[in-house]
């Protein structure tokens, strides 16, 4: 059996974490090639519905990355992000999905290294967890 190569989705806000990801690229910081970024304007525009959709259809992990608290381009956006996703995690746990398959973190536009670190660690966590069991479940 070949090594498990997880498929991971990341939502990055335009102003901080997407820029941080760009900086990681410009700095040629190497990281595992499992994460696919969707750009949104603000982390608070990420509907938990997307996360539920992705995980229930077999995506192995979802990252939601925003600006640091206090740095939101839209003032209070990420406060709402920080309020929603812990609950989304608990709901995952309620139905038996490992809650660490969803991660919320903050990456600023200047934190290319942090982006690399978050991606590398998350891919490591998901590899350890193994494939999303729902990938095999046929509804």
């Amino acid at each position, binding site marked *: 059996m070949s090594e498990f190569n997880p498929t991971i989705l990341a939502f990055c806000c335009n102003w901080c974490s997407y*820029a941080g990801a760009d900086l990681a690229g410009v700095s040629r910081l190497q990281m595992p090639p499992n994460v696919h*970024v969707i750009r*949104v304007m603000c982390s608070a525009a990420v509907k938990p519905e*997307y996360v539920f959709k992705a995980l229930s*259809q077999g*995506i192995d992990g979802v990252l939601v990355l925003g600006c640091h608290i206090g740095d939101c381009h839209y003032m209070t956006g990420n406060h709402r992000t920080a309020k929603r996703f812990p609950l989304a995690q608990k709901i995952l746990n309620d139905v038996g999905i490992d809650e660490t398959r969803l991660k919320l973190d903050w990456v600023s536009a*200047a934190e290319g290294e942090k982006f*690399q670190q978050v991606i590398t660690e998350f891919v490591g966590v998901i590899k350890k967890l193994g494939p999303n069991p729902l990938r095999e479940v046929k509804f």
Partner: protein
Amino acid sequence: MARIGVFICHCGHNIASVVDVEKVTEFAKTLPGVVFASHNMYSCSEEGLGSIRDSIEENKLDRIVVAACTPRTHEPLFRRNCERAGVNKYLFEFVNIREHCSWIHAKEPEDATRKAMNLVAMGVAKAALLEPQTEGESNVVPVALVIGGGISGLAAASALVSQGIETHLVEKEASLGGILRDIEVIGPEMTESKKLIEELKRSIECSPKAHIHLSSRVTGLTGFIGNFEATISSEKCDEKVKVGAIIVATGGREFIPKGEYGYGSLPGVITQLELEKMLAKKEFPEKTVFIQCVGSRQPGRDFCSRMCCNTSIKNAIRIKEAKPDARVSVLHRDIMSYGTLAERVYMEAAEKGVRFMRYSLERIPMIKKKDSGLSVEVYDETLDEVIQLDADNVVLATPMVPIDDVKDVAMLLKVPVDKYGFFLEAHVKLRPVEFATEGVFICGTARWPSQVSECIAQGLAAAAKASVPIREGKVVIEPITAFSDSEKCIACGNCVIACPYEAIEIVEIDSKKQAKVNEAQCKGCGNCVAACHNDAMQQKGFGTRQLGAMIDALIKNALEVSE
């Protein structure tokens, strides 16, 4: 059905040396809605753009996907190109396979290619659902704010007021001029700094358009390009001013050695600025040793501050000119005297008898106190010999480092800094004096250690850039605003609570209560979209169906294919 064209960029070797662009192109051709796919060397070159336009025409494309670098720098260019080819520019979707793929997976070409294919599939899925948009406009307050009254800020403010633009210049110290107040002449052309500062100051002070705020700081900032409101605080009062554009010229400071080479304990070991003050008082030492790269180009602070070599050469020449018999040595690791003039001055210094010796980081010079003065022991790499030098003064050439409260300023302006604490421009080549945040500009040493001539050039550049929205009088509002589907909306008010800008209200239209977005107030954050339970609230360009389709595409291509 959309007719989608996909263009994969090689970016020279940047993408193509890792990602198999031909494979990605062939894959793109199989995606739903794609009627044309090709790859080219540099999509952003005039040739690349032209070929995209030709393909649009030949294949009657109505959705364009470019897989290349980051939308944060190149999206406007490609959007304009679509417009030139007669396609609404919001029917364009950017896929980032450079910063987010080839550059960060350089050693895994196969996986990077697979990822690029997934990303292209996601982009195509979104593109298929894109809708044409029209841009809005908003007025610009014709006033500029320059933060920092050093050489860069003075150059910027002077340029702005000379164009007749009302300008607030905020300086935290009690007088203008910044670091140059402590420097008598500026190398390599030996300009008198006082004269330069006075000239710029006068041009600002005599303008009725200038408001100079000394001993003041910007302590609050709200708003967006065209309509910022800044709070300028001094001991006396807080003043709120409305401005359309902001230039950050907060400068840097000289790094103070933390005990290196006996600084602080050995008398005679001084910094470059301390030497400048001595020379200004016509105190020329008999024996001087400069040590370059103190606190820079070493682990922890690995950048080159660039100005220190020229400064040491300049001061060495000044000492030599005042006292031709004085003994002056410059201990360096590499001399950075780039450009035509500085290199000539470097030669001139050598001709005047300034001795240049190269040391290495592994074997740094040693300083000892003698009965009178200091002795420096240096291993000269070139001669492979240890040399003893006597010195009245050892001058430590330290780098420019960010100001101490740079993080606070960054937080206030919501702009990024790099890992050293210098401000980070939007793009080092394409947008060198702008932040990614529209309407905020950057110049001088706040961005990176710069020579005075570069500070001035950047100040002028920032002023020119800042004057664009002010002169235009209007800025385009990107159509990423939210709107509510009146059929679905049940007026529950979640969006009203979620909006940080009070841009949404519940109104009654055709006897149906529903949410309505005020476009002029909407900043396109999408917070209301996430708060809406029945998907009535949507953001242009980031529709839930569009993002949902991206997720579906990833599932289809990454999961179902591998099964």
